[in-house]
């Protein structure tokens, strides 16, 4: 891992010069297009809470997602009731979809968390352990009714006790069908995820982001480590003792701060997301409308079940 310093200054300067020419320094006649790198607005980022994803405007809130899963669970239980099964299938507990996308999207950001946990994510509370104690322990019949397969994984189409047809995928899938009615789930928007994917791919290839990565690499090289990308730093110590990991995490973050890596990468990512949003505005609005329709059903179901 340790090695001689790599001379990346010239490369970084060249990339930054190119990016400056592409991002508006040339005056009004420097117009952007779908293929040109977008203009970026670099602002200081000191907390992952500042990493707001523009595309997050097209998903509902974490509270909505929580209500959605409560309604799905209610629909799953009602389906089971129809078979005379009192299921104990739990309500889903998981991070909201936008929480998955933002805190570590550009690597380590939060100095306090890094000083305590290094590369590890901070514990998230009640669900952080996720152990099986007190978890779902269905009987064989409940399993068949809820999942449409037996414990050996064999699909079951008919309930042996009642002779009734089991919904495809069991009552667990039926609950989603009842609530979603084929619409975009408030907990998993395909288009939003696709935009996040594509924005990331564009960010990685962007000259401004690459310039920041080169500057970060140079900073790490000054400290005796040779990495071509930020992710390599964490991977290089993942099997090392915690103290070693912690030292690397702190250095990784310090170099990111010193080189404006986080601010630049976020600005680039944000700009590409905004471009992709513009290109897909109608479809995004339609998806959002679908999610709101789903939430209308969610609130109706929860009121009925109260």
């Amino acid at each position, binding site marked *: 891992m340790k090695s001689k310093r790599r001379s990346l200054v010239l490369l970084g300067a060249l990339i930054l010069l190119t990016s400056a020419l592409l991002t508006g320094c040339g005056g009004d006649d420097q117009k952007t297009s779908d293929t040109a790198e977008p203009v970026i607005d670099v602002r200081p980022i000191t907390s992952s809470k500042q990493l707001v994803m523009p595309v997050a405007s097209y998903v509902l809130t974490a509270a909505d997602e929580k209500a959605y899963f409560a309604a799905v669970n209610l629909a799953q239980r009602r389906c089971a009731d129809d078979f005379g099964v009192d299921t104990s299938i739990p309500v889903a507990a998981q991070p909201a979809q936008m929480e998955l996308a933002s805190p*570590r999207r550009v690597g380590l950001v939060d100095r306090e968390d890094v000083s305590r946990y290094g*590369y590890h994510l901070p514990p*998230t509370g009640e669900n952080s352990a996720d*152990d*099986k104690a007190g978890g779902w*322990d269905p009987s064989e019949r409940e399993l068949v009714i809820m999942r449409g397969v037996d414990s050996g994984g064999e699909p079951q189409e008919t309930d042996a006790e009642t002779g009734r047809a089991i919904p495809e*995928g069991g009552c667990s899938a039926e609950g989603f069908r009842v609530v979603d009615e084929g619409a975009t789930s408030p*907990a998993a928007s395909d*288009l939003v*995820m696709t935009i996040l994917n594509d924005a990331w791919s564009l960010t990685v290839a962007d000259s401004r982001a690459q310039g920041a990565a080169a500057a970060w690499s140079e900073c790490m090289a000054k400290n005796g480590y040779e990495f071509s990308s930020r992710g390599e730093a964490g991977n290089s110590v993942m099997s090392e003792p915690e103290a070693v990991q912690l030292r690397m995490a702190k250095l990784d973050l310090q170099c990111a701060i010193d080189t404006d890596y986080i601010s630049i990468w976020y600005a680039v990512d944000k700009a590409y997301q905004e471009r992709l949003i513009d290109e897909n505005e109608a479809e995004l609005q339609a998806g959002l409308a679908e999610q709101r329709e789903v939430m209308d059903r969610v609130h109706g179901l929860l009121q009925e079940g109260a």
Partner: protein
Amino acid sequence: MKRVLFAAATLAAASTLLSVTPAFAGPASDSVTVGPTGSGSIMVSQFRQLYDGSGYSWVHRGTAACTVSTSNQDYGRSNLNINDWNDVVSYLQDYNQCDVKVFQDTNYEIALTGYVNYGSSGRGIADGLNNRTSSYYLS
């Protein structure tokens, strides 16, 4: 809008909803997926390419939490290669009472671990097993 990147999520044959965030994924058509038929959005696992949490990740979604027993497989993916996720997993997270068992080869051949509870905060895969996963079960 280019949708090929989300091929894994839209497979008609897939019995669970999969997403990759951010992602790279090639055409997928024949990977056998364990789990109940029908799409749901309950997250059961997330695999990350990089230990620092940046870059690409693989999210597996299903219709129900995993059961207490690990004698059966609640979910699985027999071939990560066709989604360009072969031998890239470094960090694992599991949710909704699921544990993860990873295999070196496709079709659940050569177990690298038993069932491990990585938790929602997750942790790196065991020493020496980085970038070696080709298929996995969740239970």
